[in-house]
């Protein structure tokens, strides 16, 4: 008995109290997710950062330390600048239209009518469809000779387009598909935002003398500002990362017309086996996105009214 008591005394000051088991339980619950995040996100990120200062092909046993030369060559590289330009072209081509269309659709489906759920479903389903599957189908549609889009154009008496086969029209083709894919997402988020606007503000507008346009301009749009801001930030971040569409449909071509940053990164890493260079690209991309988001945040704080 005494022996047991002695042992109990040593362990129990930590082991027995409630606090200890709370501690264990707390970390126990978090641990699986924590382990995954650390192992698959943080560790690779830090590892990649270190690799970005080397030259390595991922297979040879030697890694050459090259300091900042990867970053220097990147900043001087015309291809990198070109891919930045292509990515920005893509951003400017998709985001405004997706948001505008999304908002329009949200306003349209923000009413109760028969089959409204059906429409919401229809518009949102491209968002959750596999990008690759979609890319393949659109590639067919875009085929200059056999594709259905050119068929329709011809029927309407319009000239057929090269779509993804020509450097001039390749990016616009990808942009069209992308808008179609993401409109639903913006629509859903805008819808949520619209529904959070108090209904009686519109009635006050009715009394105050506001027509449809005044209601949109003076009530809907300003009160939608937090939602709009959110969508803008998220859209920019996501669009910077576009890859699957390009890889499925154009492989960065023709003539590098659709070589977005991440595709450029992919080529460097997996076709040219220049891992260090690729990681440098990744980190520059990170800095760009971070800076953009920060800038948006600052602007947003000043100008957006949160209820």
């Amino acid at each position, binding site marked *: 008995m005494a022996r047991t*008591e002695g042992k*109990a*005394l040593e362990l*129990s000051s930590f*082991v027995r109290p409630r606090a200890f088991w709370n501690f264990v339980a707390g970390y126990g619950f978090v641990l699986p997710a924590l382990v995954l995040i650390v192992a698959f996100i943080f560790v690779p990120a830090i590892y990649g950062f270190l690799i970005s200062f080397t030259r390595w092909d991922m297979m040879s046993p030697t890694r*050459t330390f090259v300091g900042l030369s990867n970053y220097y060559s990147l900043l001087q590289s015309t291809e990198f600048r070109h891919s930045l330009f292509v990515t920005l072209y893509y951003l400017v081509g998709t985001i405004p239209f997706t948001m505008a269309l999304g908002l329009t659709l949200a306003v349209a489906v923000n009413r109760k009518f028969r089959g409204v759920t059906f429409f919401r479903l229809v518009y949102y389903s491209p968002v959750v469809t596999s990008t690759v599957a979609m890319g393949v189908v659109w590639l067919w549609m875009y085929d200059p000779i056999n594709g259905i889009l050119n068929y329709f154009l011809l029927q309407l008496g319009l000239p057929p387009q090269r779509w993804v086969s020509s450097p*001039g029209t390749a990016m616009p083709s990808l942009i069209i598909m992308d808008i179609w894919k993401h409109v639903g997402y913006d629509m859903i988020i805008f819808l949520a935002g619209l529904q959070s606007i108090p209904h009686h503000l519109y009635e006050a507008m009715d009394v105050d003398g506001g027509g449809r346009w005044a209601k949109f301009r003076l009530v809907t749009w300003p009160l939608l500002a937090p939602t709009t801001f959110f969508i803008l930030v998220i859209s920019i971040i996501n669009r910077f990362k576009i890859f699957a569409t390009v890889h499925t449909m154009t492989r960065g*071509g023709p003539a590098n017309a659709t070589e977005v940053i991440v595709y450029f990164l992919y080529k460097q890493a*997996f076709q040219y086996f220049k891992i260090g260079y690729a990681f440098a690209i990744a980190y520059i991309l990170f800095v760009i996105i971070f800076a953009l988001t920060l800038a948006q945040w600052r602007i947003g704080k000043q100008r957006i009214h949160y209820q």
Partner: protein
Amino acid sequence: MRVQRRKERAYAEKGGDKMNSFLRLVLKTPGRITLLLLGMILLQFSLQPPAYGQVTIDFWHAMEGPKGHVLTEMAKDFMKEYPNIKVNVSLQGGYTDIVRKVQAGIAADALPDLVMLGQRHGIPQISESGRLLVLDEYVTAEDRKDISPGLFGRYTYKGKVMAIPFAVSTPIFHINANRFKEVGLNPDKPPTTWDDLVAYAKKLTRDLDGDGRIDQWGFNIHSDIPWHVYGFIYQNGGTIYGSDGQAKLDSPEAIQAFQFWSDLVHKHKVMPPLAHEGGSKLFTAGNLGIFQRSSAFIEGAAKAIGKRFDYRVAYLPKSKIYAVPDGGGGLGVFKSAPEKERAAITLMKWFTSTKGIARFSKDTGYITFRKSSIALPEMKAFFAESTRDHVAALQMEYVRSNPVNHADGVVWDELGNLIEKIESNPKADIPTLLKELNAKVNKEIAEYRGK
């Protein structure tokens, strides 16, 4: 103190700290024995001592579908011949996937023993890893006579043979004999020079219904463009890399080759620009006279065409010489325990033997590239029936290639870009573009010189 003790005892008696009692139980003797037994059982599962004399090797390949089955069947027959070698055949995806898996394998130290490597997929890098066995000593003088020397190029790195050619294909002309006849051409006399090609293709390019749009094209090339560019460059007497290891893409021969390509699109208007993806469909539908694509396409094309028209194949034409690049993959061996290496080499030699190549090419549509295989009676019979495969096999004497190089990836990519630029812009300044490209490639080469 006493009060505290009493409280603690009461707490313990109530079973308050269950954990403590559990730990105590585990650390007592019955618990220890159980743990020991569990450990021994687990240990059994992790150790796999081989049966006496048995060697097991892993073979990674990149042949999807029925072609992969052929490999599995062949491996079974091998195992019958060599009962002490067990072969695990596994499909790893395509050539690109194999490179990835090898990359991962190098990091995880989990490489196969025999591997199929694509001729343009990472052989320089994998060689640099030091894990590939150099195979020069396993290539006999007979082999070198039996196999066209041009084939070894793609598997030679820094002067050493790193893989043996196995699944070989080359570009070839696929011909629609019906169209030929319709425009007064003789399908038994396919075009043999570049000028022939232009003349034939012009005749074959027709606007049948007078609506201003061309309905039948004379010539098109499949979308693995850079490969075919090599062909044109070689045919014009040029080369990708010179013997000094520098890129020669801005040589006059290369410039002419590119100019020829551009002329096909813009001057002679016999090839639709930037429509290479749809070329295969165009051909099998009967609206293309001459289609340049891999010999591996023969089987699929024949099925798709059926009896719709008379489908034949022909050599690629020459400008200055006959020359075709080779494609496909070869077999490489990864270093490991001596008995495994030996087993892998045995398997490799079996696969690439005269009989092995004969069987493999017959069953998969890859080219029979060994002269001895072509001479085998079963192959003679096969060729009598499949004249197209015969033509492909015979074209092997014109195979040319450059040794692999770190800059190959860049070359492949940039050639594709260049052609896209040329096809979309009739006024493209080809010499300048090639100069730029050449400088870029040389820069890549220089970067790796340091190694």
